[in-house]
């Protein structure tokens, strides 16, 4: 069908990723008539499960449940809609010298393991854990906050800032010291203050660089170390786990909750253009030519797509366009998904024990991590990359044929801006990843039945992530909080009346958190009440 359809909605949400679905669900629960439009045939965006090879179900992009906000799980009652999180216990790091480091959720086990490498570090690990939990307490509320704008002329913005300042002031001097360091230091500088074991620092620091174009020695990477502890405050293993049925199951549960609340969802409906009329968004036009009118348009796709592809920049203030044009994506990671005939056997810890059920991290030393970054700085994929692997089929047999396994490898660094062409180097990249793992698990190559290699270019083409950035834009200090995605436009509203942002390119950023979607819905509904949403 084409031309003006008579259907009209309170809100249409662009993109059926987890954030778009969360926003839709919350809007519908507030009584709005909502339509979600997804370009692909499947929902979930980067949080998706697909049968890439017959019988093998892959969490194609995002592969672990990291920080899905507990309030969202609660409010949308996701378990009832089929969300089941299976534990992902621990991180196993094989070392070239034949040793390994194996951290698990059981604090005391981990302590004993670390003591094998350094008694001092075992002691420090307790202190570190305590400090991190405190820091997490401070940061968590900020995740579900609409960022205050320090330059705002109005009193509310000023008070928001004062409140933030007061919360910081109320911290103990020791916690302030840690907080400041976490916000500004490099992961390694920060960890150096606590630990001496190289492999421990390397593996812990890895979480600081995931999805960014930064190295473990780059200032600003310490902050992400916190995320691992924020989950733990919610109790349980919720922070690190698999969804039964793969990451797509999370999106499906949210979609189910949304439908129950009355949301209408359409897949295979790519958007051609956001419709505006004298400075107001009035709806969207699909690639099919169909036009759908709505009071409000919420975009969960990144700002480059929203403002530079789906709109005519003439409809936007010049300064704003400039800010969006320089908003940094710079994808730095790739994904290699393997269908296996059996389980890899690691030289440093043979057998198919519990160490294979957690994450397996190729991060043997700090210099290894930093050199991987150096390659990327100059436009090459890492000759020896950092790899984070999981084998979900061990925990959730439903995702692979009996006796077979799926192995998901997150790989860094793979710079979007490659010297050369990704389409020509894709397989070379895949080989590098397999070779790197094989150095630790020699039998891997003989097990590989199918291999899917996703370069940053593929992430951009197939999943609509500009420059293949998995967080819809770099999580660097100058792109966080009131600066995400653009100074002055970090409160989910945009220069175009009735057009809102609700994706990972808004505060508090990427990862399967759902927080941007929830915050955006709250802000939009508040504006609606204030009568700011006018046709």
């Amino acid at each position, binding site marked *: 069908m084409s031309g003006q359809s008579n259907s009209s909605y309170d809100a249409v949400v662009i993109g059926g990723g987890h954030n778009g679905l969360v926003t839709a669900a919350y809007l519908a629960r507030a009584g709005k008539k909502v339509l979600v439009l997804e370009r692909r045939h499947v929902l979930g965006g980067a949080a998706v499960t697909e049968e890439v090879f017959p019988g093998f179900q892959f969490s194609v992009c995002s592969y672990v449940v990291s920080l899905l906000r507990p309030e969202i799980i609660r409010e949308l009652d996701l378990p009832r809609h089929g969300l089941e999180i299976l534990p992902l216990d621990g991180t196993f790091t094989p070392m070239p010298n034949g040793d390994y480091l194996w951290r698990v959720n059981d604090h005391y086990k981990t302590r004993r393991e670390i003591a094998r490498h350094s008694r001092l570090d075992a002691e420090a690990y307790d202190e570190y854990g305590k400090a991190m939990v405190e820091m997490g307490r401070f940061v968590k509320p900020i995740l579900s906050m609409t960022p205050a704008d320090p*330059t705002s002329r109005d009193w509310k913005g000023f008070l928001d800032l004062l409140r933030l300042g007061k919360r910081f002031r109320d911290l103990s*001097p020791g916690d302030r010291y840690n907080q400041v360091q976490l916000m500004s*230091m490099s992961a390694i500088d920060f960890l150096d203050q606590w630990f001496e074991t190289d492999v421990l620092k390397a593996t812990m620091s890895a979480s600081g660089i995931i999805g960014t174009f930064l190295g473990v020695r780059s200032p600003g990477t310490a902050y992400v170390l916190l995320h691992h502890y924020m989950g733990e405050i919610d109790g349980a293993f919720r922070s690190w786990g698999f969804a039964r049925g793969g990451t797509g199951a999370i999106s499906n549960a949210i979609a189910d909750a949304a439908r129950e609340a009355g949301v209408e969802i359409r897949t295979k409906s790519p958007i051609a253009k956001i419709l505006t009329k004298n400075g107001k968004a009035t709806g969207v036009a699909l690639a099919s030519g169909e036009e759908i009118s709505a009071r409000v348009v919420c975009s969960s796709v990144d700002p480059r797509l929203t403002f530079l592809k789906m709109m005519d920049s003439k409809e936007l203030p010049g300064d704003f366009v400039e800010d969006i044009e320089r908003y940094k994506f710079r994808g730095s990671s790739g994904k290699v998904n393997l269908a296996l005939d059996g389980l890899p056997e690691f030289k440093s810890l043979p057998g198919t024990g519990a160490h294979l059920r957690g994450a397996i991290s190729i991060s043997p030393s700090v210099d290894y991590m930093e050199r991987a970054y150096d390659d990327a700085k100059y436009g090459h994929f890492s000759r020896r990359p950092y790899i984070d692997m999981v084998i979900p089929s061990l925990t959730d047999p439903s995702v692979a044929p009996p006796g077979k396994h799926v192995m998901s490898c997150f790989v860094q660094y793979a710079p979007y801006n490659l010297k050369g062409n990704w389409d020509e180097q894709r397989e070379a990249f895949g080989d590098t990843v397999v070779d790197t793992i094989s150095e630790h698990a020699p039998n891997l190559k003989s097990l590989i039945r199918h291999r899917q290699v996703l370069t940053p270019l593929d992430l951009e083409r197939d999943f609509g992530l500009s420059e293949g950035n998995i967080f819809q834009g770099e999580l660097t200090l100058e792109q966080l909080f009131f*600066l995400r995605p653009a100074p002055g436009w970090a409160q989910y509203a945009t220069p175009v009346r009735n057009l809102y942002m609700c994706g990972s390119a808004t505060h508090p950023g990427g990862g399967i958190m759902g927080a941007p979607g929830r915050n955006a819905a709250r802000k939009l509904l508040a504006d609606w009440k204030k009568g700011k949403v006018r046709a």
Partner: protein
Amino acid sequence: MNGTPDVLIIGGGHNGLVAAGYLAKSGLKPLVLERRNVVGGAAVTEEIHPGFRCSTLAHSAGPLLPRIAADLDLAEHGLKTLRPEVRVLALSPEGKHLPLYDDPSRTSTALGRHSEKDARKYGEFHESLGRIGKMAAPLLSMTPPDLDRTEAGEVWQLLKLGKDFRGLPRRDAYRLLRWGPMAVADLVAEWFETDLLRSVIAARGVYGMFGGPWSAGTGANLLIQAALEPHSAGPAAFVAGGMGALTSALADAAREFGAEIRTGVEVSRIDIRDGRAVGVVLASGERIPARAVASNADPRRTLLNLVEPTELDPDFSNRMRNYRSSGAVGKVNLALSKLPKFRGLDGNAPQLLAGRIHVGPEIDYLERAFDAAKYGEFSPNPWCDVTIPTLLDTSLAPSGAHVMSITAQYAPERLREGDWKSRRNAFGDAVVETLAAYAPDLESAIVARQVLTPQDLEETYGLTGGHIFHGEQALDQIFTMRPLLGWARYRTPIAGLYLCGAGTHPGGRVTGGPGANAAREIAADLRRKT
């Protein structure tokens, strides 16, 4: 000096001398104790070869905070500042060059040859940086506020600052907030396309740092300098007679106000009774009592070496040990028989070369130079900040001859292979060879060569870790966090012991800021007590 001094100042560097000047001016009796036989610390002029005198370490002034020269009447004491019309000349290996003039419009014109766009943008950048700098300038002469007990006067200062901040055009306000945490490489890429321009401005963000242009937070250093001197091309304030002339003017001024200065006396420890500093003990065993002690030495040296560990809370000492002060700078000083010929420079070479000379043609060049340091190697092709002071001040060398002062990055404190004693010359060669690619006849002109490694900076000039700023100027070690959060007000956990060096706000470079701010706090405390 009759009677016991009010304040002992450990170290006669420029900040120690500034502090002495202000304290004496306020009617107190300071006594400066300098380990070496010459005052000045890192701002000295020394003879590197008979007849050749050179600013051996710092070769250009920060510049000094404007009011310091006036407050201490340095002009009367012979301070003569030389300002070249070309602040910095950026060179490319192909013999292209880009002069950044004192007058931005001339720079724009020069840029026209490289890029129309940059020629246009430069003016806007210069003005924006200027507005931001002017707004932030008062921060430099301010004592970082205490989060828990903010004094009325300071609240007022902060409100005023907040008002000025809101007074900025919103565009600039956002820039101020964005630029600080940014990687300086990103910052310049947002403005310019010419590699030479990008690298010469980015270099300002990494000068003295253990970080490269891609390190986040290097934008903050650009802002600090903008506050110091709102100019996009960076400092080019030279002193007639070399940097030593600046510090001897400071010393004369301090003496005239009534300060006493003793050289060749090394302080071995700070004398502490019941948690209060009551004086110092010299290496000679001599004991000097005083009402207060101010240390111009860096924070680690002061609080970890000169103070008995038992006097400090272990938590504090631990944080002090974690204060990062691992340097990345080496220095090469050359006595030259003639002015070397730089590729691509024609007749007007002397005018173009009279400011700073920047050798580091691309961002990637600077970053690769830093990569080496990360793995414990000095850069095979270092970034060089070069001056030929004899072009403006012939008094420094025999007629026709010249001296060349080269600040070379990166030279990490700890080398992975060998030590600095054995690698000193290899480093010197790397620097000279790097420059020879731009001035082929350089080597033939060299009469004598002095190479200063990070180890020399530590042993000879007392800079812990060889860090020229007394500690890394990273986001977590500036303003209220310099040297440590909660201890940024020039005081220390030991009553009567103060810090007045570059390890305190506003940090490194020859600005006198730390000394002046510390003097104000010390005088206030001593007045309270009497």
